[in-house]
């Protein structure tokens, strides 16, 4: 009886050992043969080479479509919008390039989920945008209505594309400021500048969405209105050129320490919602006055000066 019990125990141990062996072999096989995920840095680097800002073939297709719009009667009113979307893509690409120079050094990967979501959305929608224009290129006889519907498709996909950048930049902004450590390029200037990028992108997306929803089933010149989108994109383009492509303000902050950045930060913290409001209207109305509750110790004159600085800043002027 005792021998039987002993034999049963040995069998149990053998089964457990066998099970452990199977688990170990499975783990080893998974590690060796499963395709490795690309690192976020590799994934990110890819998007800096696929957009019309970087990829010559995509850019050529876009230019061809612009030419088609320009010479087809009945759709020429899209020209400004095409030009604006191209300018927007270039500006978004410049911001991505800015983050690309730093992301590899980020120590904290807790924002990778949001960042990867944004990257994948950009990559997928960029592929669709390329396909739309590649198809349009083949359709040499396309008339007004086909060109219209091509652009309506393109615009809707472009909205998804820009929203991908929105996710990416918001994640990158957090990663940049929280995981590079205390470095020269994370300061009051970088905070205000990169938060303003996020606000600009939000305002531009809101306008593109309005355009998308008002042109779902085709548009006519009489009902089409680009509104302030072109002016906002132009303002964003100046802003990116002044503070992102030219990084003087961020890199030299500790030497120049412009007090206005402290004030701009204060504006942003205190009147956060007004930053979006300001961006939403300032591009076409530089004389805008914003009413806000003054719960700081600012006098009216100080608040007015602050607003004036903020206006100059968001339009890419010297601060």
């Amino acid at each position, binding site marked *: 009886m005792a021998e039987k019990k002993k034999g049963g125990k040995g069998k149990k141990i053998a089964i457990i050992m066998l099970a452990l062996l199977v688990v170990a072999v499975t783990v080893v096989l998974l590690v060796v043969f499963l395709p490795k995920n690309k690192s976020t*840095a*590799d994934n990110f*680097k890819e998007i800096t080479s696929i957009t019309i800002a970087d990829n010559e073939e995509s850019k050529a297709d876009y230019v061809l479509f612009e030419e088609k719009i320009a010479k087809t009667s009945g759709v020429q009113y899209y020209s400004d919008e095409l030009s604006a979307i191209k300018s927007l893509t270039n500006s978004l690409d410049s911001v991505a390039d800015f983050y*690309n*120079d730093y992301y*590899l*050094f980020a120590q904290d990967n807790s924002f990778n989920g949001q960042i990867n979501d944004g990257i994948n959305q950009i990559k997928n929608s960029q592929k669709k945008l390329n396909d739309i224009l590649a198809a349009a290129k083949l359709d040499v006889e396309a008339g007004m209505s086909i060109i219209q519907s091509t652009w309506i498709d393109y615009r809707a996909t472009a909205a998804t594309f820009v929203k991908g950048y929105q996710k990416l930049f918001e994640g990158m902004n957090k990663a940049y400021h929280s995981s*590079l*450590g*205390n*470095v*020269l*390029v994370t*300061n009051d200037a970088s905070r205000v500048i990169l938060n303003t990028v996020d606000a600009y992108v939000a305002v531009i997306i809101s306008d593109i969405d309005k355009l998308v929803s008002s042109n779902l089933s085709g548009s006519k010149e009489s009902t089409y209105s680009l509104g302030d989108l072109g002016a906002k994109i132009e303002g964003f383009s100046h802003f990116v050129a002044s503070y992102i492509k030219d990084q003087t303000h961020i*890199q*030299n902050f*500790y*030497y120049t*320490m412009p007090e206005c950045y402290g004030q701009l930060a204060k504006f942003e913290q205190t009147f956060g919602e007004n930053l979006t409001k300001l961006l939403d209207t300032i591009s076409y109305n530089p004389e805008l006055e914003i009413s806000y509750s003054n719960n700081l110790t600012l006098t009216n004159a100080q608040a007015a000066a602050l607003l004036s600085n903020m206006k100059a800043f968001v339009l890419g002027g010297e601060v």
Partner: protein
Amino acid sequence: MKKILTSILMAIIVVFGCVMFTACGGGEPGKVVYEAYHAQLEEMKKEDSPFGAATRNNITSNFMMKNFMIKTASETKLDYGDQDELIALGLNFIEKYYPLAKDFEKGSDIAHIKSSLEKMSEGYEILKEEYSNTKKISDSEDMTIYNGFIARYAEAARHFSSTVYDCAAALARYLSNTVKVDESIESEAPTAAAIEFYVERNILKVYHDYNEFLMNNCKASVGSMNSGWYSLSGKSVKTNLSKEATAQAVAYFTALDGERILTREALENFSYYDYQIIYNGDVKAYEKIDSHVGIYLKQIEKYFNQYLITLNAFCQTTLYQ
């Protein structure tokens, strides 16, 4: 079983005793640190030393390398490279500041100082050997043979230079963290001694950066140190800095420490020597091996060509006289 328990108990008592000894002020007093540096510096000032007192490229030092010249086709001789200047700057710091350890009575762990001094001493013996070899050739020797001897001497200097900076960094850390020479730097009224040491230990870090870049990453074959740093070595720190200037210096040097970490990471992942010599300065070619090298290169170039140049201007105009 009883034996095992007794052994474990004994081990616990020994570990506890060591911890208590350290916590209660065990370790070596400052005099030991002083004597260790003093002995090594005196050794390096002896007659057969490769060093002598000289001024070269605006740097005056008791530790300027002798006979560190390369022969050209026209039979004239030129200063060989940055090794001599970097070694002189590092040893100047040690020579100036090690006496501050002399009267510090509290004991502390100086293992890192001792090991860095040992490595410097070993490097020095190799350097001395190569220096004595250069004396075996005459000035009329064929250029190739002459320069071959100097190249071996330069290679020993390249390795020695890194030991100097490790040793100087260990001293700077000891004087700052243990002796607390610059403790008052962020107080309302920092002392003149605190300001001077604080600024100079941060400038030492800059020389250390150049040493990492030029001597290790570039293998002393490409790149050079910005001459603004040579000219700064002849000047002295303004010890009556305004409160604002001191705060600005502290903010900047602190942020530069963070930037230095990124740059060291870039240097670990990027060879400027390969970039210039193997890939002929073509980053696209280098990127075929590692797609991220362009990012590392940007960080390295930003750090050395922008941040340190701007810092040098700040030093020349605000921190030094």
